[in-house]
């Protein structure tokens, strides 16, 4: 093995100490990408998978065929959800640092993905999120207190203390239980959509995974089954450029866009500016119409940036350039929508400040209520008997016995 290795290793543009370099991100002009018929065949619209659908131009105005023409009220609602998502994240991050919760994951810089997509879908559509889609839960209207109680694993935790923080679910809001195992939800969403089709129902399913997770087998199964049965499903790859410390090139992004995987399966792939609220909304609406009109599945790549650490356990300064987010070419989703509304004369710095203050107050009051139901360290605790429930619908005898043993163990004086 003295001969030189010929193995190709993907290049990571900027490591610590190097200057950020986003020249690898293929951009299109706002308004430049045509909007095909909803009924278009996958093979006739393959270009969508390498272009970048954008609506907001540098002047923060909406241009081109993908402009969804939302009225200002809707845009203000979207802005509100995004700001609330970010403020919620900030607070939870600080609470983790304060030792009140064990773990947290922020979606900083990716708020438009969840919020715009959720608003473009209807409430009956079933969502299969990843752990970085809290905007979906907020846009679907779950009370912050409920999210916080889950994160606290307290007595009002919807998961009865069984899941890590952020692994939410909600039956009434049609949000599926989040899994710690990457990508598993992707083909499950396809199955849900197949069932909707079998039952002749109109609802579609949508799921989200990170670009790194697209390497898992589940990604392939999702695209394949969606294609074979033409399931009414929207499969979203959130390309935030990083998988913990690993650059998207290691997931295949160096050779081709992630959206480009779709056409190979006969599924339309469409690449969109994930920080452009209007573009994300429009593309999702288009995909939803396809699903509802029996035109089948769509794969959407949302190009965005993970502005924060992977999670509270992570320190990105070890593996990427410090000031990279300032150089990110697609800007910040909240800032861009805010500027658009201001350009429309429908918003102002003052109103924005007021919104921020109002929502900060909401977050604070919600937290104050949530902690009355307990935190990791103090307050009321969940009954540990709950540990043995829901393994099966009815508790089998061997678990009843183990529950009894656990109680005995807890009562036992220790040290003896």
């Amino acid at each position, binding site marked *: 093995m003295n001969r030189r290795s010929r193995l190709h290793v993907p290049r990571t543009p900027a490591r610590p100490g190097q200057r950020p370099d986003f020249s690898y991100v293929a951009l299109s002009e706002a308004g430049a990408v045509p909007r095909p018929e909803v009924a278009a065949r996958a093979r006739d619209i393959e270009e969508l998978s390498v272009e970048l659908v954008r609506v907001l131009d540098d002047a923060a105005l909406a241009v081109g065929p993908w402009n969804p023409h939302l009225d200002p009220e809707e845009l203000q609602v979207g802005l509100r959800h995004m700001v609330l998502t970010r403020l919620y994240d900030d607070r939870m991050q600080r609470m983790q640092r304060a030792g009140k919760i064990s773990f947290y994951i922020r979606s900083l810089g990716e708020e438009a993905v969840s919020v715009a997509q959720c608003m473009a879908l209807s409430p009956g559509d*079933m969502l*299969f999120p990843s752990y970085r889609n809290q905007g979906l839960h907020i846009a679907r209207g779950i009370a912050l207190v409920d999210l916080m109680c889950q994160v606290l694993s307290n007595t009002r935790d*919807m*998961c*009865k203390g*069984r*899941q890590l923080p952020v*692994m939410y*679910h909600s*039956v009434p809001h049609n949000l*599926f*239980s989040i*899994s710690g*195992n990457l990508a*598993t939800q*992707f*083909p*499950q*969403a*396809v*199955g*849900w*959509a*197949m*069932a*909707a089709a*079998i*039952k002749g129902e109109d609802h579609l*399913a949508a799921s989200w995974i990170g670009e790194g997770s697209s390497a898992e*087998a*589940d990604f*392939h*199964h*999702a695209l*394949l*089954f969606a294609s*074979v049965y033409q399931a009414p499903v929207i499969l979203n790859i959130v390309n935030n450029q990083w998988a913990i410390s690993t650059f998207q090139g290691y997931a295949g992004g160096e050779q081709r866009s992630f959206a480009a995987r779709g056409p190979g399966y006969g599924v339309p792939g469409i690449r969109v500016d994930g920080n452009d609220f209007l573009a994300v909304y429009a593309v999702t609406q288009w995909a939803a119409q396809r699903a509802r009109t029996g035109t089948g599945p769509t794969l959407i790549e949302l190009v965005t940036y993970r502005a924060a650490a992977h999670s509270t356990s992570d320190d990105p300064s070890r593996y990427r350039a410090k000031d990279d987010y300032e150089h990110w070419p697609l800007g910040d989703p909240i800032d861009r929508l805010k500027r658009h509304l201001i350009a429309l004369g429908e918003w102002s710095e003052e109103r924005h400040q007021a919104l921020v203050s109002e929502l900060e107050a909401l977050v604070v009051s919600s937290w104050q209520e949530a902690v009355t139901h307990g935190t990791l360290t103090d307050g009321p605790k969940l009954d540990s008997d709950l540990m043995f*429930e*829901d*393994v*099966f*619908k009815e508790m*089998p*005898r*061997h678990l009843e016995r183990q529950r009894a043993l656990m109680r005995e163990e807890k009562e036992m004086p220790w040290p003896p």
Partner: protein
Amino acid sequence: MASMNMVQALNSAMDIMLGRDPSVVLMGEDIGYFGGVFRATEGLQRKYGEHRVLDTPIAEGGIVATAIGMGVNGLRPVAEIQFADYIYPGFDQIVSELARIRYRSAGEFHAPITIRTPCGGGIRGGQTHSQSPEGIFTHVSGLKVVMPSNPFDAKGLLITSIEDDDPVVFFEPKRLYNGPFDGDPHKPAIPWSTHPKGQVEEGYYRVPLGLAEIVRPGSQLTLITYGTMVHVAVAAAEAMKVDAEIIDVRSLVPLDSDTLCTSVRKTGRCIVAHEATRFSGFGAELLSIVQEECFWDLEAPIQRVAGWDTPYPHAFEWEYFPGQRRIALAIRAVLESA
């Protein structure tokens, strides 16, 4: 009552459930138009349509995953994995997802799925058509695990499994599809019509999960087994002329340990037998439970009879298969000792 082999009994169970419950769907490789490589779903697609009986791509992981999604959306999928040897590509979705959805969502979501899969050897299938991986699944909290040994139980247990709101992995000993098998490959094969358990009610009936069956009452020793080995055990006990109490576990999870232990307390001697490899096989759990609960009644060490700890070799099928001789040696051991 009609005479059915195990394939017909399974087919009847699925036919009845497709008819009774519009949320039941079947899915798997070659199960639709063709009716399955073992014919278990023969005629069902013609009868219930392509949207109730789905041919799928060859992707066990995708089959389980989409079945989960369907289950979450109110259907009751029965997924066939063509051979148990090919269930591993679906392992992550079974272990990390199917088994835990109810738990992690605090009971708010669940997927009532039955995974049917032919297992076991004795058909010259070699190492990738003969495996008995049931033990692995019994270690996964949240899964029910079933293995019938005859047509009557197969139908009743499958109906119960399909109606069960928890996920069930349903193992079908393929060597028993066409007739009982006592472990002697040289004897002419006999059909189920010659066996009482080959008489099966045509209509709907359930055999509950979590109940073992005493196949043959006895006083000298307790022989705990399941699947193909039930018939091998009966034959071996008869050949050895011992009054063995032979118990068919049927439902590995949940396990009917009371029936097992009551018997061992009576006989004081115990053998556990299965086709699967011995090391860390389900026999170890059966032995452990009996040891823990019946220690003071034991008059001899519990013996294990199992497949050897190697892959299942094509050319040495009968040297590998735990036949009557292997059981006989265990019978001697439990009876002789002390």
